[in-house]
Each structure stands twice: as structure tokens, then as C-alpha cells.
């Protein structure tokens, strides 16, 4: 059997909506935390402590386990100056590394261009879920978008036995012809690329076997798809996944508990799955969100804030706490209401790009930023 590719692989996991970092890694001995959150605090006795001041959300047990196994780096207090509170704009900033101008190129796409400069593999970057996040979009960079791995490809609405014939005709219709105009040719090649991607991806579900049973939710499904594609060894270097629903303005305790359960379970299952297949050594996961939430609760949930946290997870990660936890003492609050970030997100992208993927970061993230050193 052919040896598996050992090139480093990055899995980006985006928590959409603004994860409440304060209720994910909780400063459970701080009176200020409990004062600011009369309604949505996690009671001290429920927190899963990792040291004398911080502990995980009670539903994030699997994350705590990864932390204790020394496989999870927690980047505390990640953000950027003048954090933007609009979901879309904030996400754009994270996607393009452009906090001032409106950027057009995604940071992942720029990395993909470095990894596969001649666009030789349509699967170098695979995005799971509907539509493409701006992070992976840049003109001329092929990215494969997989919403449903079983039904990936063109004309999947057509029943299997007849689809083969339809695909054959599609292939003929898209084969570039001599003398056709440039746009037609370009469309033809793109169509053939889609077919190629479809062909390659067919392998993934067919070959996959695992004892790990993922839960039935969106992020678990996406990470299972990542595992299946990764295990099929198709040359994918960056996977992009999203877990939505973090915009917890109301009924946060209930919602966030569910989110933490889904997230930590899915990450743990994915980790175990790769471990079981001895295919995890070249994989690192980066978990991020577009902003943290307001320090004070609003009587039911929390509103858009700043100062989120990120996780870097993988067998070759040196677990521990990185950067500083933002101060929860009211005198230190930003604008009297927000956590102050302690490290710039572009430095964390830089960490992953340079120290993990071996790609120069500065041109991609737009400058040099302080990095952390979580790789053994």
C-alpha cells in the first residue's frame, strides 16, 4: 500500500456568530465575572477547572480532556484593534486580514495559491458546507465546496444509474473546442475540473471505515467529511468548516450548552478517528470566532463584543495556555464594556502558516505580527 502523504494539513473550524469566550474558558474565581453576569454566568461548582483561575464550560469535557492530554493550545484574548461588531464585517476582517479597507482576497485562498501555485489539484482546499466563506475565495484559486459528500458533484439530482450517462454527456458538452471564445473555454475547463473533483471525492465515502460514531449535528457531520476526505489521501492541505449558532443574544445558557456539547464532541470524535487510522500526525485544527461577547449580560444572553479565544489542536501541538487572558476587572474594560484583546489574530494565522504549513505569513496576513509557539 502506498504510503500516506505526510504534508501538513490545516483544518480551520469557524464558530460563526461570535462565541462567548468568557463562558467557554471561564474565570471562575473572579467576582467581577459573576457581578457582570447575573443571568448567564456558569456557577463555580459546575466549571471544569484547569487551574486556579480558569475552567472549561461544563459541557466542554472533551476539550478539557484534550487540554489535559497536552494536545490543545488555548490562545487567550485574540482580536484586533477597534474590533468590529457587525457579524459580516467582522467575519470579513478575519477572512481577508483587512481591518481597514474592504479586502477582496481570502487568507486561506492566498495560502492555497502558495501551496499549489499551478492549481494542479482541485482538492488542495476543500470547504465544507453551503457556499464559500470569503476566506477561501480569490480569483483564480480553485476551491472545492462540498455541502454533502455523498451527493457531491454536478447533476446529483439525477438518479444514480442514469446519472452516469448524463455525466458522460456533460463531459462532452464541456470539452473545449478549437476556436471557441475564451470564456467558453474557461467554462469548459472549469466544468471538467468539477468532474475530476467529483471522481476523486467519490473514493472518500467508499473507502472509509471507522469505529468512531459521530453525533448527528452539523459540525460533527462536517468533521466526519473532513476525516473521510483526509483519509482518502487526495492531497487536500486545507479544510474549512463552520459551526453556526453562536449569536447568543437570548437564552444563552441553554443554547451555549448545546453548542459546547456539539463542538467538543465533534472535535474529540474527529481527533480519535484520525488517531485510530494513524493519520492525525500531520493534522492541526484551528478553532476561531469573529468576536467574543459583551462582558455584562443583557438579562437573557450577551451581545456582540470583542476579545475572543482560539484553540489549536493536534497530536503535534504543545498544549497549554498562550497569550494572556484579558482582564475582567471593570477598570480594564475596553470602552467600559468589552474584553481587551491581548494578541492579534493575524499573528495566530501567521503561527499556523509559518510554523505549521511552512508558508511565509507576511504577504498573506498583511504584515508581521506576534506569533505563539505551540508546536513541539
Amino acid at each position: 500500500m502506498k504510503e500516506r502523504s505526510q504534508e501538513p494539513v490545516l483544518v480551520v473550524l469557524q464558530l460563526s456568530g461570535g462565541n462567548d469566550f468568557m463562558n467557554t474558558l471561564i474565570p471562575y474565581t473572579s467576582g467581577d465575572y459573576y457581578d457582570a453576569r447575573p443571568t448567564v454566568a456558569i456557577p463555580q461548582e459546575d466549571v471544569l477547572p484547569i487551574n486556579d483561575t480558569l475552567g472549561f464550560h461544563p459541557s466542554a469535557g472533551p476539550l478539557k480532556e484534550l487540554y489535559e492530554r497536552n494536545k490543545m493550545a488555548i490562545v487567550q484574548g485574540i482580536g484586533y484593534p477597534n474590533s468590529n461588531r457587525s457579524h459580516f464585517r467582522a467575519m470579513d476582517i478575519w477572512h481577508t486580514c483587512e481591518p481597514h479597507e474592504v479586502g477582496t482576497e481570502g487568507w486561506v485562498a492566498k495560502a492555497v495559491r502558495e501551496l499549489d501555485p499551478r492549481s494542479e489539484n482541485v482538492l488542495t482546499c476543500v470547504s465544507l458546507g453551503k457556499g464559500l466563506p470569503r476566506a477561501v475565495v480569490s480569483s483564480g484559486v480553485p476551491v472545492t465546496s462540498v455541502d454533502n459528500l455523498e451527493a457531491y458533484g454536478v447533476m446529483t439530482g439525477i438518479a444514480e444509474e442514469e446519472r452516469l450517462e448524463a455525466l458522460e454527456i456533460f463531459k462532452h458538452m464541456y470539452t473545449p473546442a478549437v476556436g471557441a471564445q475564451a470564456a467558453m473555454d474557461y467554462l469548459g475547463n472549469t466544468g471538467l475540473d468539477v468532474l475530476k473533483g467529483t471522481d476523486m471525492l467519490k473514493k472518500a465515502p467508499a473507502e472509509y471505515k471507522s469505529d468512531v460514531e459521530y453525533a448527528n449535528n452539523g459540525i460533527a457531520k462536517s468533521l466526519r467529511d473532513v476525516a473521510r476526505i483526509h483519509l482518502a489521501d487526495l492531497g487536500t492541505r486545507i479544510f474549512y468548516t463552520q459551526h453556526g449558532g453562536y449569536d447568543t443574544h437570548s437564552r444563552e445558557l441553554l443554547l451555549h450548552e448545546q453548542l459546547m456539547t456539539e463542538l467538543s464532541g465533534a472535535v474529540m470524535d474527529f481527533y480519535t478517528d484520525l488517531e485510530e487510522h494513524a493519520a492525525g500526525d500531520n493534522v492541526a485544527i484551528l478553532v476561531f470566532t469573529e468576536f467574543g461577547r459583551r462582558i455584562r449580560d443583557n438579562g437573557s444572553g450577551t451581545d456582540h463584543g470583542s476579545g475572543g479565544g482560539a484553540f489549536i489542536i493536534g497530536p503535534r501541538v504543545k498544549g497549554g495556555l498562550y497569550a494572556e487572558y484579558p482582564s475582567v476587572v471593570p477598570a480594564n474594560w475596553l470602552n467600559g464594556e468589552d474584553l481587551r484583546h491581548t494578541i492579534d489574530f493575524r499573528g495566530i494565522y501567521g503561527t499556523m502558516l509559518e510554523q505549521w504549513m511552512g508558508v511565509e505569513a507576511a504577504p498573506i496576513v498583511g504584515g508581521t505580527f506576534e506569533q505563539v509557539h505551540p508546536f513541539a
Partner: protein
Amino acid sequence: MGENRLALTAHLMRRAGFGATREELETLAEREYAELVEDLVNPERFPPVDEDVLERYYGWLEGVQGKVWSGVWIYRMVNSQRPLEEKMALFWHHVFATGVSKSDHPPSSIQQIKMLRRLGLQDLRTILLELSRDPAMIFWLDNNENHAADPNENYGRELLELFSMGVGNYSETDIKMAARAFTGWTFEQPLGLYPCGFYPSRFTYREDDHDESEKTFLGESGKFDGADIIDIIVRQPATARFIARHLYNFFVADEAQVPAWGTVPPRDPEAIDTLVKAYMDTDGDMRSVMRTLLNSDFFKESQFQRVKSPVELVVGTLKLVDTNRFPDTNVMSYPTATMVMGQQLLNPPTVEGWHTGKEWIDGGTLNERVNFAVNLVADTSKPGVQAIMDRLEKDGGSLTPSEFVERCLDLTGPIEASEETRAALLRFAESGGDLDMTSSENGESTRERIVRMLQLIVASREYQFA
């Protein structure tokens, strides 16, 4: 009625509108082409979309989120009896690209599109003046931060670079002067989203924050206000040329992208000259310019020279299958469909707008485009699909494989297919032999073959072009 005439009518309706059903096309094609153009450029001749019914089913449209409103906009595109009015709104939305993502304030973006719909065929002066007073635009390009004592150039710069003249036709000083002229053009603070939902924003002019001083702009001097700047801008031949190129790219044939216009000459310089003349002769009256454009030979000869935008692909396919003629719950899925194809209405990626032409297409978006159309024509309960079946049945007898291909290409467009595409479709047609329309016994399998043929056609490269 000649084939060409039908094809030309279909072309006109695809470009000046969003397509039409076969039946509509045949009725329209009986009239003089120039008369059709007159109807299109005079939308007031026809009633507007019934707002009450929209509100009853989709809710109060001043207060909804952008995605809901976009769904209703797509409904309007399908149903409006004033197709060019809706198409002009979309055109100006491409040009004056304002993203709701920065403000998260949909009522302002909605107000802007309504303004573009209302004024889309007026003269450019009126349009630019209202644009400069539009709260969504003011916030998008920071004119609310443009103060007499502390000018912000963003709006002044983009007004010249992207909304009227194009780079290379003015100096950095002109930008500064324009910016100063627009100081004090801002909006009133609207009430916040919480706790009672959105409230509209409104333009306001702050005299105490306006720079009254003498300014020199494009060689003219005076104590200019924003309106004076617009007066000067709209008289410039460069403006006529810039707008002409935009119109050509949107209505006629794919051009290079805007940033390249300084260096890449127009695809058809004579066509641009014609449009420039129409503009200059009428002081920038868009109705006249559009009349000239739609009646021109270069327009008539430009069939299938543009890659459909996602919105055109989605709405055109909805028109083809003749669905969504009354509010239903499906319409909300269409803004998602255009988004995954790369065009989120109300939210163009940057002030440069969407990149068009072949830049609409990548592996992901092509997949979405093909699957969307393929799935829609599979539904034989859709009146448009039904109508195609009925017509083939009415032909009676049986169709040879090549007749089968030609009839279907005709009924879905007419679409001009390449030799390769025809050959590929013929392979499919031949695999089933003659299409027997007489025997009811084979009815089911005949219908399945027709559906499959329609699916293959809308999956083709040619179908991606308008």
C-alpha cells in the same frame, strides 16, 4: 414569425429584463421590435407589482432582514410588468455597490434599492444627487465622517473613480475638493434595532459642518456644494464614456473589469461612441441612452455574449419553468441560491461591485448553477416544463433524435448551441431512438426523456450565457 425574430425578442427580454416564458415571447414577437423597446423604457405604462399582497405574505418589508427582502426582490424580478425598471435597479446596484454588511442596517440598503428602482431611468444628475443623499451610501463610504474641519475623502474619491468618471480623468486635488464639497452631507441617527426593530435613517444637511470655502474642481471655481460637484461631473465626456462602458458590460457583452478600463480599450469602441453621443445629446438621460442601446445593431448582434450573473441565472430559470407567480414559501430559497453562486443581493463584496463575466464562474459556483437549473426543470408540475411537454405532444407523431434536440433547444431559448454541444445532446437523443409522441403507453418514459433533455440543456455551457 421568423426564428430570428423570436430569438431577438428572447434576447431583448433576457437583457432588458430577466427572460420570459415561451408564450409571452411569441406574443411579444408579433409586435415591432422598436415598440417593445418603447414599452421597456417607459415602465410607467404598466402597473407596478402588487405591494399589498407582498406585505400580506412576506411581512412588512421596511422592517425585514436583508435576505427576506432579497427574496421578495427576486419575486419582483420574476413578476414585474416593468422588467427594465427592475433590471436598471440591479444595474445601478452593480455600479453603486453598497454592502449591507458594514452597517447591518437593512432598512437603509432597502431604501437605496427602492431609490435606484424609482430613478433608474432618469438623468444621471438626479441619480447621483439622490445617491449622495442616501444614508446607506453615506455610511458605506464614510461621508458621515466627512467634516468641515476634518474631511474624509472616501466618498469624494469613489464618486469620481467608481460612480462617474473613472481613474485618470481627474487629479488628487479634484478628489479633495469634491470631498470638501460634500462635508455636512450626513444622516440623522436612527433609533437602534433593539428593542423595537429597525427604524429608517434619513438624510440631513448640517450647514454648520459644511466647508463653505472657495473650491476649484475640474478647472471650475466657486463655493461649491455637493450638488455643484455633481453638476460638473455629469457634463464631462469622461462620465458619459464611463457610464457607457458600464452599460455595455451589463447589457451588451462582457468587458474587462472596471479597474482595467484605464488601460484596456473597449471591446467595441464604436458602440461606446454611440452611447456617449446619446448621453451627451440628452444631458445624461438614461431613458434615452437605453433606448439607443436596445435599438442598436451592436445590441441586437450580441446574443449570448455575456455570462449570466447568478441573479439572471436564477430568475431566468424561474421564468423558464414559469413558477413563483404568486407569493409562496419557496421564494426565500432563491437569495441563498444566488449567494452560493457568488452574488448576495444587497451585499456586493466591495465598492467595486461584483466582478462579472467569466469571473462569476469557478468550480463551486458552476456546480451550484448547473444543479440549480437541472433540479428546477426536473419538476414536471412546473407550468413552464408542462408547457414544453404539451408543445412537443402537439407536434404529434414522432421526432427523430436530431429533431428532438433542435426542438428542445428552441423551446428553452431559443439557445444557440455549439456543434460539440449539439453532438453531445444528439448522443443522448439517439440512445433512445425516435421520440414517440403518439403512444400513451410510452408516455411516462417519453416525458422522462424530455425532462432529461431539458436537464442536459440547462447544464450546458451555452445556458450559462445570456
